[in-house]
């Protein structure tokens, strides 16, 4: 700075003398790093717990021997670990991470703390796909058997047919939302369009269910309860690759997402191509949420709550920190819900959406109410 400050009285109104700024106090990197490490450790711990708990409790030694073939084999327990518990834990972690980051994307894009990936209508679209294939299957009397944990009523193509139908339904709705987004003036208009589409599609689904027989409706209902146990070991690579690719794409969107934090106009004046970023965010969020929905059914609450929990953990809205924090928080919450859904030593299974809503929602409400930051417009 040159010392040529004009000696006018107005400049005296700015605080002077200028204190020597403490640059380190302006940055908050330390806390975020600690939070990320803690979240990572928690995810690993919960992963181990998810593998070892359930109807039968399996000790760590037994688990390791099953996974890596050390020690004496026990075919029954080994199969339980490799074909049921590990896929369940991996699915829970991936689903939580995917839904959480998709929620973060939509919350930033719409600058709305209540936004979640399902407002884009993807779950409604997936639901329509599943409703169509189950009712069609019932109508045609097709004799294929569902192989997953979804009951034994016939669905064309079995479990994979259901996943495929859900994916196609989600993709079609996504295409429609993208088409309409070209004409939507603002993110808010787009948000409303997504909600309207979702409710229209849900109405069609209701109509289909009313017209079909109770057994088929029951099957759709079961899908709607959500489950991380239905994904077979052979399906894991598909889920894993899509979710990993989606998370990578989210990381690449980190910089323009930061730009959006101050609103579309400020983003434009900082050189961000808002229309292109909006398109990218919509596609990535819908692919992440749509894929998880296709495999696990519509899992509520994670998409909306996980980003808030992650923000509280790291204390910043900067996406470079928030994206990994949200993915890790999502994995932690997803695994925790999977553990509660399969209580140790009990043969019954609690539907996942019951866990996420009944257990998760009060927890999030308590955390939000206790957080002093809520008053500051912090979301």
């Amino acid at each position, binding site marked *: *700075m*040159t010392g*040529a*400050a*004009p000696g*006018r009285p*107005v*400049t005296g*109104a*700015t*605080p*002077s003398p*200028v*204190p*020597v*700024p*403490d*640059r380190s*106090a*302006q*940055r*908050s990197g330390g806390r975020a790093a600690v939070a990320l490490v803690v979240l990572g450790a928690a995810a690993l711990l919960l992963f181990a717990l998810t593998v070892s708990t359930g109807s039968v409790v399996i000790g760590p030694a037994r688990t390791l021997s099953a996974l890596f073939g050390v020690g004496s084999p026990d075919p029954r327990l080994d199969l339980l670990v490799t074909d049921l518990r590990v896929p369940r834990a991996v699915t829970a972690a991936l689903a939580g991470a995917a839904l959480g980051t998709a929620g973060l994307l939509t919350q930033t894009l719409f*600058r709305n703390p209540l936004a979640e990936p399902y407002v884009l209508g993807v779950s409604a679209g997936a639901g329509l796909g599943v409703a169509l294939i189950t009712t069609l299957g019932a109508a045609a009397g097709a004799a294929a058997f569902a192989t997953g944990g979804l009951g034994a009523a016939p669905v064309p193509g079995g479990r994979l047919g259901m996943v495929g139908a859900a994916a196609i339904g989600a993709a079609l709705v996504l295409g429609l939302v993208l088409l309409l987004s070209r*004409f939507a003036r603002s993110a808010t208009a787009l948000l409303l369009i997504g909600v309207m589409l979702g409710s229209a599609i849900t109405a069609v689904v209701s109509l289909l269910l009313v017209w079909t027989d109770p057994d088929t409706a029951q099957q759709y209902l079961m899908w709607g309860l959500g489950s991380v146990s239905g994904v077979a070991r052979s399906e894991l690579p598909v889920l894993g690759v899509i979710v990993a690719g989606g998370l990578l794409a989210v990381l*690449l969107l*980190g*910089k323009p997402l*930061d*730009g959006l*934090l*101050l*609103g579309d*106009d*400020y983003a*434009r*004046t*900082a*050189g*961000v*191509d808002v229309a292109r970023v909006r398109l990218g965010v919509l596609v990535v969020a819908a692919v992440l949420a749509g894929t998880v929905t296709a495999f696990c059914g519509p899992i509520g609450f994670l998409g909306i709550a996980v980003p808030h929990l992650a*923000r509280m953990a790291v*204390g*910043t*809205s*900067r996406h*470079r920190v928030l994206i990994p924090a949200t993915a890790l928080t999502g994995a932690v919450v997803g695994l925790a819900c999977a553990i509660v859904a399969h209580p140790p030593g009990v043969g019954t299974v609690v539907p996942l959406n019951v866990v996420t809503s009944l257990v998760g929602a009060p927890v999030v409400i308590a955390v939000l109410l206790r957080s002093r*930051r809520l008053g*500051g*417009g*912090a*979301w």
Partner: protein
Amino acid sequence: MVSGLVLSGLTVGYRAEGALRRGRAAPVLSGVDAAAGRGELTVLLGPNGAGKSTLLRTLAGLQPALGGSVTLDDADLLALRAPDRARRVGVVLTDRPDPGLLTGRDVVELGRLPHTGAGGVLGPADDAAVDTAIDAVRAGPLAGRPLARLSDGERQRMMVARALAQQPSLLLLDEPSAFLDVAARVALLGLLRRLAREQDLCVLLSTHDLELALRLADRAWLLDGAGGIVTGTPDELAACGAIGAAFDTDELVFDPGSGTFLLRAGAGA
């Protein structure tokens, strides 16, 4: 070489755009010729609805121009791609964004977006630019605090710092003092005048704070509310009666001598 901002025959306004049809252009201002020099504070004045925001938003690249040309230091401002423009033009808007969990420094760092690579990682040069911008608005002690906890005046200073961190040659501000009390208004305009001098910036701001603006500005662009524009130094505009023509009412009359509004004799009696 013409330095600073030059508008030639610029037409700004709106195109009635709909989902199904592309409507006719509706110009707000037509054929605007004006200039704002480097190192100068230029104020954009005019009654509500005269087109101040439309003009500023067009210059900021937030809406397309309907005609004419704009040059900034001989570069065609209207033809620049968004990232290139962002490296030359810093903008402070009227709206108060919800900053979420951003600190003051985080917000200023967002000004480096047009300079960083795809990952958005700040290098030493970026950190230095952020430090300089924070110091320029004398907001060092505020930078570590959440933006949501700052007063309107402090917040506006951080937004100015964010624009400065873009290292622009042109600074555009749309009614930056709209939400501020008198002390903060005076401080902000004084700050902008100092920044224009110290960093050889071209500063163009719109304001309704007529008397303060006329006292501090080097140049003024006066929109008369009927599509016309008059430019000149504040003294010239006051002397030629343009300010009075634009702002006088039945009750108040502009007094060129004192630079203030006076109650008309007999008004309100």
